C-alpha cells in the first residue's frame, strides 16, 4: 500500500503505482481524461508531441507543494506522491487545448464530408469539443498528392498531423521500417523517400494507429460511410497474429477488417495483413457478436435493432436500446 502514489485530478483522487503517468491515472479514474493525438499506450516512446493532453500541475507533490511552471504533457509526466492536477477544471488548460486544436487544423483540410475517416476521426471529435466555430486562418494550406504505399495502404499527407504513431508502429511491429518522417518543420512528411511499397505482414496496422484520414485501407476506401456499416467482433485461428478482429459489414458482406480498439481507441492486439486484407468472406470467421460501440459515437447511430447475425453473444444493452 505504502508504495502507491496518491494523485488528485480535477478533484478526484486515485492511488497508482510509481511510474504511472498523469494520463494513465486519469484514464483509470474515468470521467473526462485528457485527449491524445500522438500518445498511443501500446506503442513505446509515443507521446509528448501533439500537446493536446497538456494539463496543469497545481501541486507538484506533497514534498514540493509548488505548481509546475508550465503546463505539462500528461502522457509523459509521471505522477508524484500528493500531486494535484487540473484538467477540465482549468481555464488555462482548456485555452491551451483549444489553441493546439486550432494549430492542428490550420494545415488540415476542413472537408470532413468527403473524407473517408469521417465518423471515426480523432481530430474530428477533438475539434467538435475544442475547436472554434470559424477559422482565423486565412493563409494557404499544405497540400500533397495521394500516394499508394503498397497494394493496401493509401497515404494522403494533406491530412497528416505528424503524430509519428505510424513510424513507431512500423519500428516496433515490423522488422524493417521503410517509411519515416522526411524533411522538417511544417514541410515534414511521412514517406518512403523513394517510392516504395510497405510490404510487411504487419504493415496494415499503421492504418489503425493513424488518428486521421492520412493512412487508409485501399480495399475499403469509399465503400461505405462508417456509420452505415455494422461492426462485429470475430476471430479466426491465425498462425501470425491473435486473429481477433472487428468485421465491418454491409448487409452480409465484409467490407473491412480492422483490429479491435479498446475504450481509449487503442489497439492492443495488432493483427496481420493476411487477416486484415485477405479474409473478406463471412465463412472465414467465427462471429462473436455485435461490436460494443460507444453510444456517443456516430458509428453507434442507426443501430437500434439487433442485427440478424448468429451466433450473437456479448450484446451490450446500450447497443440495442439507444
Amino acid at each position: 500500500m505504502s508504495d502507491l502514489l496518491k494523485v488528485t485530478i480535477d478533484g478526484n483522487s486515485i492511488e497508482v503505482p510509481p511510474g504511472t503517468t498523469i494520463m494513465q491515472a486519469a484514464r483509470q479514474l474515468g470521467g473526462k481524461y485528457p485527449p491524445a493525438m500522438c500518445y498511443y499506450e501500446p506503442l513505446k516512446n509515443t507521446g509528448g508531441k501533439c500537446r493536446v493532453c497538456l494539463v496543469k500541475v497545481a501541486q507538484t507533490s506533497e514534498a514540493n507543494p509548488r505548481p509546475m511552471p508550465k503546463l505539462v504533457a500528461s502522457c509523459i509526466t509521471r505522477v508524484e506522491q500528493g500531486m494535484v492536477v487540473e484538467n477540465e477544471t482549468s481555464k488555462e488548460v482548456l485555452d491551451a487545448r483549444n489553441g493546439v486544436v486550432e494549430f492542428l487544423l490550420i494545415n488540415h483540410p476542413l472537408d470532413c464530408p468527403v473524407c473517408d475517416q469521417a465518423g471515426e476521426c480523432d481530430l474530428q471529435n477533438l475539434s467538435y469539443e475544442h475547436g472554434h466555430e470559424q477559422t482565423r486562418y486565412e493563409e494557404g494550406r499544405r497540400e500533397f498528392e495521394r500516394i499508394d504505399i503498397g497494394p493496401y495502404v493509401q497515404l494522403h499527407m494533406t491530412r497528416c498531423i505528424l503524430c509519428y504513431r505510424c513510424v513507431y508502429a512500423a519500428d516496433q511491429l515490423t522488422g524493417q521500417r521503410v517509411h519515416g518522417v522526411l524533411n522538417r518543420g511544417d514541410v515534414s512528411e511521412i514517406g518512403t523517400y523513394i517510392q516504395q511499397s510497405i510490404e510487411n505482414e504487419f504493415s496494415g496496422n499503421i492504418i489503425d494507429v493513424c488518428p486521421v484520414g492520412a493512412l487508409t485501407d485501399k480495399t475499403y476506401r469509399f465503400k461505405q460511410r462508417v456509420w452505415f456499416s455494422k461492426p462485429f467482433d470475430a476471430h479466426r485461428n491465425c498462425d501470425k497474429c491473435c486473429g481477433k478482429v472487428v468485421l465491418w459489414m454491409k448487409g452480409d458482406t465484409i467490407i473491412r477488417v480492422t483490429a479491435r480498439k479498446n475504450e481509449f481507441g487503442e489497439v492492443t492486439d495488432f493483427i496481420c495483413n493476411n487477416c486484415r486484407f485477405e479474409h473478406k468472406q463471412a465463412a472465414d470467421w467465427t462471429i462473436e457478436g455485435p461490436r460494443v460501440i460507444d453510444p456517443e459515437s456516430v458509428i453507434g447511430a442507426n443501430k437500434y435493432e439487433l442485427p440478424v447475425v448468429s451466433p450473437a453473444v456479448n450484446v451490450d444493452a446500450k447497443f440495442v436500446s439507444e
Partner: protein
Amino acid sequence: MATKILLEHVGVEGIRAIDTYLAHGGYRSVGKALKEMSSDQLVEEVKTAGLRGRGGAGFPTGMKWSFLDKKSENPRYLVCNADESEPGTFKDRYLMERIPHLLIEGMITASYALGANTSYIYVRGEMMPVIRLLEKAIAEAYAKGYLGKNILGSGYNLDLYVQPGGGAYICGEETALLESLEGKRGNPRNKPPFPAVSGLYGCPTVINNVETIASVPWIVNNGGAAYASIGIGKSTGTKLISACGNIRQPGVYEIELGLPVEEFLYSDVYCGGIAEGRELKAVVPGGSSVPILPKELILKTAAGEPRLMSYESLAEGGFVSGSMLGSGGFIVFDDRACIVRNLWNFTRFYHHESCGQCSPCREGTGWMAKVLHRIEHGHGKMSDIDLLVDVAKHIEGKTICPLGDAAAWPVGSAIRHFRDEFEAHVKNPDSCLAKHLHGAYAHAASIM
C-alpha cells in the same frame, strides 16, 4: 582596463599553435587540476565562481555539474555545444577561430571534473573552417600529452573528438544536439529525464557552451573567488558580447558583467555609437529570441535606473519593459530600420528552423511568418496584429523545447513596443521604411 579572461591572448601572433599557446601560460590549468585537485574540488571551485551557462539560459554551471549522476555505472560524457546559430551571436566562432586551444584546455579540465573519459565538441556544420582548426589543435594536444592515455602522468585518460552538425539551428537545444550526435534527426527530447541522468547514449551527460568551457581554465588557475569578485551580484565574471547591426564598430567584446548598456553602446572601446551618425531606435540585447527594447528602455529601466549588461538588469521589468542577456548577441537598430520587416525575418527564421515535432511550434511559427509577410508587404489587416499576439501566446510555454518561446517572444515584444509601426504598415504600406526591399526575394522558389 577591464579584466580579460577569455580574450587576453587573442591578439598574440601565432596563438593558434600549441607552442605559442603554451608560451603564454596555456594548459596550466590541466596540470593544476589533474595533479593538485580532486574532481569534487573542481566542481566546488566552479560553483564558488558563480559561472553561469553562456549559451543563453544562464543556468549556474557548477550546479549543472553537480547534478551529473555519478552513481551510475555507465560512462559519463561532456559535450561542448558549439552549434552557435542564434542570430546576432558570433562569439563562439570568434573564440574557436582565434584561440582554439583555450576551448580544448577547458574541455580537458572540465572532463576531468566530471569524470568523463570521452568528450565531444559538437560544432555546427557550416563552420567547417573552425572544425579543421579544432581538429588540428586537438592533434597538437595529443602530441604534447594533454590528451590520450595517462595525461601528464596523472593516470587520467581522455579522448576528445569534434563532431560536425548538418545545418539545423535546433541542434543548439541540448537534447536535440544529443540526438544529432547520435546520428539522428535533431528532434529535442521530452524532459525528464534530463541529460545529467540520461544523455548521450542514455548515459549521464553534461552539455556546456563554448564560452562556458573556455572560462574554466581561468577559474582553475585563479580560483573561483577571484572570478566571483568580477562582475555584479549573481552576474559574475566576464561575458563575450557579439555586437552587430547599425553600429560603428561591430565585433566581439569581452566585458565585465555590470557594464552600463549606454557605455557599451557609445564608448569607442566597444560599439562606438550608431553608424553613419544616425539615431538609436531599438536593441535586441541577447540574440534574436529575446525581447526587443526601444531606445528608452534599453538605456534605462522603466524605473529610470541605468540599464546594465547583466543577467538581472537586462531582465528588470520582466517582459513588460525588460529583456534578457541571453547569448549576448547585441543587435542594434537605427532609425531607418523597419521593425516589422525585421520581425518577419526573425519569425521566418524560426519557422524555417522548427523541427516540426510538436504542433504549436510546427504550425504556429509558419502561421505567424505568413501573417507578418502579408503585413510587411502591404496586405495586412488591423485584426492581424492582435491575431499575432494571440498565436504567439498559444505557442509560448506549450512546446517540447524552448524554440517555441524563442519564436513567440520577439513577436510579443515587437508589437508591445512598436505597435504604431505595425498599424502604420496596415494603414499605409508605403510607410514601410524597408519598402525598397520588398522585391528582394522576387525570384525565390520559396520565401518561407
